[in-house]
């Protein structure tokens, strides 16, 4: 059977329209779902350390190298703009070396790195 008239075609398949309420509920579900997805995505991204944090870690290595080579065994505080580094030096008993503690402060996060230097 050849059906060329559109009206005839629409009569053949009867499409029942959904109610307005159904559409609203569906849109609400999708909205809630997407907003939750967005929150999860943002949280996941937020858990990673910031760039300043990695810069601070690298800076600690640099400061440790300086301490070793230049034998600077004194307490010092450094402000590098996006992060702070505190250096505390403690002499070990029997003069066998020094304990050097670097504390990184990035935003509200703190991290400690400890070394023995002779």
């Amino acid at each position: 059977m050849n059906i060329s008239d559109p009206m005839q075609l629409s009569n053949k398949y009867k499409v029942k329209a959904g109610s307005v309420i159904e559409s609203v509920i569906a849109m609400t579900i999708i909205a809630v779902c997407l907003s939750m997805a967005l929150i999860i995505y943002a949280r996941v991204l937020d858990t990673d350390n910031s760039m300043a944090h990695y810069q601070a870690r690298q800076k600690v290595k640099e400061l440790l190298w300086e301490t070793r080579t230049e034998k600077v065994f004194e307490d010092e505080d450094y402000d590098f703009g996006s992060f702070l580094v505190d250096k505390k030096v403690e002499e070990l008993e029997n003069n066998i070396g020094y304990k050097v503690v670097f504390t990184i402060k990035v935003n509200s996060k703190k991290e400690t790195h400890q070394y023995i230097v002779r």
Partner: protein
Amino acid sequence: MIKAGSIAYAILICIVVGIFCYSLLLMSGYSRVYTTMLDTHAELLVNNESAQEFFLGKVDDIEEKEITIDLFENGITSLGVIKPWGFYKVLHTTSVFKKDSVKRTALIGQWQKDDNLALYLSDASKPLFMVEKAKIIGNAALPKSGIKAGYITSNAYRDTKYLQGSKRVSKTSLPKIDYLDFGYGDVRTTRLNEVKDHTRLYNAFDKQTLVVETDTIVLENKVLTGNIVIKSKDSIYIKKSNVLENVLIEAPKVAFESGFTGTVQVLAERIVSLEENVVLRYPSGILMNKGNVDKREINIAKNSKVLGGIVVEDENRGLDKIVTIEEDAEVIGDIYCSGKLQLKGNVTGTVYTSNFYLKTEASAYDNYILNGTIDRKGLPIEFVRIPLFKSKSEYFRPYAIIKQI
């Protein structure tokens, strides 16, 4: 008929988004676990390095008893173990956190007092004669009769100043060496024929020392590294095809083929001979102080180098003990010879000898140096010398790492 179903589509989208979010959380969680593991391992490495520094200051204590310590009270425990290795010592440091562990091993030695002593020549009532370009840079302890310019047939003294440093009077005997251990701890043995040619055999320093016993004289095509001792009851001829790193050689007679390069410490009884162009890299050494023999002899031929030290010691004064350093040969480190030293080459370090001698085609001369130089000032302050005198005045400086192995 197709039913309308907005909610069904919405739920489908929710499921897809949910799967996406779950995957994201899962990946993030695993990533965090992995990062924590990496950070912990990095901290373990740093802690291990610090522990090594700490144990370097406690070497004498560790020698008496192994030390285990939680250095920063962060749950990482570190263990330090000391073991002798020829002239030097090996410090083995292990750090453990839960099931993860990190090890590092270093060859260590003590820095010595910077006394600037270039030569200690015991007083046998004969002056020291310097011929042609012979020179001493640094302080010297000399016989009462002093140091003079010498003359041998056509060779006279040509340089402007043969002693660039102060001098004092020496005693009739050399300063006594403290007990040289030259040990290597517990051993397990194997035969040389069980070691494959051209295949690297490495034995770590935290394991028992591997003693490779050999009856064959010629050692060739072997690649041996680490905690290994090559031992023979007679002679060993080390061909240049061998690759030897940080190993010990123990035999009455040892010879190195021309062109050989490696890091070895040799414990011999009768003779050690380095043909031309042999380089024993730092930290190497030659020790002769054991065995009941009639003669002890070390020959270092032209263009050969020993970086570390040479010790020939025997209290038997009637025994012939001869060290010969040929022209253009070089020793960087100390030489202790309780016999005769024929010096035609260069020594960067300190020489302790009972006597110098010089043999030419025409004759032999006592206490003559022809063209030889001793340069104490050329030795860097960081150079860890072989331990000879353990009195506190000589050894007040701390232990240092010679190399990580």
